[in-house]
């Protein structure tokens, strides 16, 4: 009985914690993630700019830095190809 009660109490505690996080921090965390994403995409553009007709960096440095941009290429491509509407941009 007491185990059941403590299970319910734990669940309630967890729910309150998550709701508090959702209210206080989730949009801030998402905002920070977006800021990081924009910077990463800028970095990707610098590295791959040569291939896109924007020779920003000399190929030597692009190749040296290429491994660092590989993890974000998928999300960059995804975002690059996704048509964005003005109603997509609430909260930045």
């Amino acid at each position, binding site marked *: 009985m007491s185990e059941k009660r403590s299970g319910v109490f734990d669940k309630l505690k*967890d*729910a309150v914690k*998550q*709701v*508090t*996080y*959702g*209210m*206080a*921090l*989730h*949009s*801030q965390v*998402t*905002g*920070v*993630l*977006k*800021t990081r*994403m924009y910077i990463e995409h800028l970095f990707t553009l610098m590295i791959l700019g040569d291939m896109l007709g924007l020779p920003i960096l000399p190929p030597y440095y692009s190749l040296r830095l290429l491994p660092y941009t590989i993890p974000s290429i998928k*999300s960059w491509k*995804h*975002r690059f190809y*996704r*048509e964005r*509407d*003005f*109603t*997509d*941009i*609430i*909260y*930045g």
Partner: protein
Amino acid sequence: MAIHNTPFTLVAVGLLIYALAYWGYSKAIDRKIWQPDPARPTPAHMYTDGVEFFPVGRYVLYGFQFNSIAALGPILGPGIALIFGWLPAFLWIIFAALLIGWVQDYSALFLSVRNEGKSFGPLAYELIGPTARKLLLGFLLFYFLLINAAFIYVVAVVIDVFPSSFWTLLFLVAASFITGHLIFNVRMNILAVTALAIALLVVGIIVGTLFAWPPPGSLTLGGKPGSPYTLWLVPIVILLLLGALLPLPRLITPMNYIAYYPVIVAIIALAVGALASPLTGIELAVPAFKGFEGTFSSGPLWPALFVSIACGAISGWHSLISTGISSRQLDVETDARPVGAGAMLTENTVGLTSLAAWVVLAPVSVSPDTFPQGATKLVAPIAGGEAAAPFISTFFSIYMVFMAITIMTILGRYWRVVMAEVFGGTSLSILGNKYVASVLGFVLPIAFVLTGSWINIWLYFGGTNQLLAGFALTIVAVYLLQQRKPSSYSLIPGIFMMITTLAAIAYQVYVFFVATTQAMLLHPTQNILKEAAGIGAVQAINGFSVVVGVIMFILGIVMFALLLKALSRAKAAAVKPAQ
């Protein structure tokens, strides 16, 4: 003391109705119409990018959705609705909570989830047509102007009457810069930073209350407290520009985070104060019903009541959040009800508790600065009594200021993007420039603020806000019709809201038109402008509101016609139900 004559009754009956809405009606709609399938992948899983599309637990998303939709609407709207007495306001809040408010938030969320997480613009494009998307773009521009106008008005008036709130606001800004630096640059522990920020805020409230300078009304034209013709507009606009132009982590991110704590405490305090009213002896001081006629400024009960309470009953802003953000983070379809409907019913509760704060004061003129006084009367008996009252009224005034400022800084950024979209690549592309657009976004609303007629600005804002909700409800109905599913639960409220809001906007245009052509003052406050700049200035300001209202009305009517066309097309189309 009769218990039925206390705010307790309003809140208790309301909560019972909300429980019925959540566990009864919304559950039935969820099961019978949308039929959520926990195995069907949501956009959060289909397009995971870890930034916009990623699955989030239902409790987190519920908290986020509530925080994003909560603003000044449910706090101030009930005050205007009191023109007709507390009973119509109460009935509309619970009626909307049961049948309309959550319907919009939840259905818009589900519509987007079933359509690859698309936001309002692309959904309007696909379900109604390209013209609808363009109209929506224009409509949103004016909508943002009116939100900013209504909120800047509130902040200016509240700060003028409660100067303590300005100094507390400065503490919030300082705490935000410090917090942002400590979190993002120093990478200090979040709990320690939060404790520091809250301590700064408490100091801000104490310092603000003790240093309440200058006296109310000393920075306004004519020296009348509570007037919008005030120099406080200058620091407010500067702060908003900073918020709109600085990088997010510098000011907005930490400010919204810190502001959350006093806001949530205020909401809980109001609810507890209302529920404890039989013990504290606080009674309803406003008559239950004052008649259907209203005033010349407000117009009759229909349509004015239905656009006054805004987010506390139904709000178009919520559909932008549901489709633009939450639908992309929904983990499983079965979470749509707790997130969409649950968050909206919580917002309805904020509307109800705010109504409780308004009704405990004897009838006075409707003005934003009345709310902190009512809230103080409701809460002070359970939080320190008379000795604590000055601090409590500072607290509730900053509650209003924080609610407005945090939304306006985000709107400022959004407005900028919409301006760039509208004017980019045209001969007026300068208007899409980051700085020019930001300045326009906060300076143009001042033209509305200077009308000095609070009720009319609010009803304009409420009209456009609820009209957007009517669009969202009808777009959902178009989709359901296409899918051969029952749509009347969304269509009937949608049509009702569109007709009502268009009537409200038309009436407000009429009011401003009469005031312009007959050189009439809409509110005694306009005397200040008349004395300072002559009746011509009053007419010019009122005329500006006529022009904006006419544009909004035309956009609304055309959109309404397009929606009706889309509905008849959808009825005729034979599409297999989505599986």
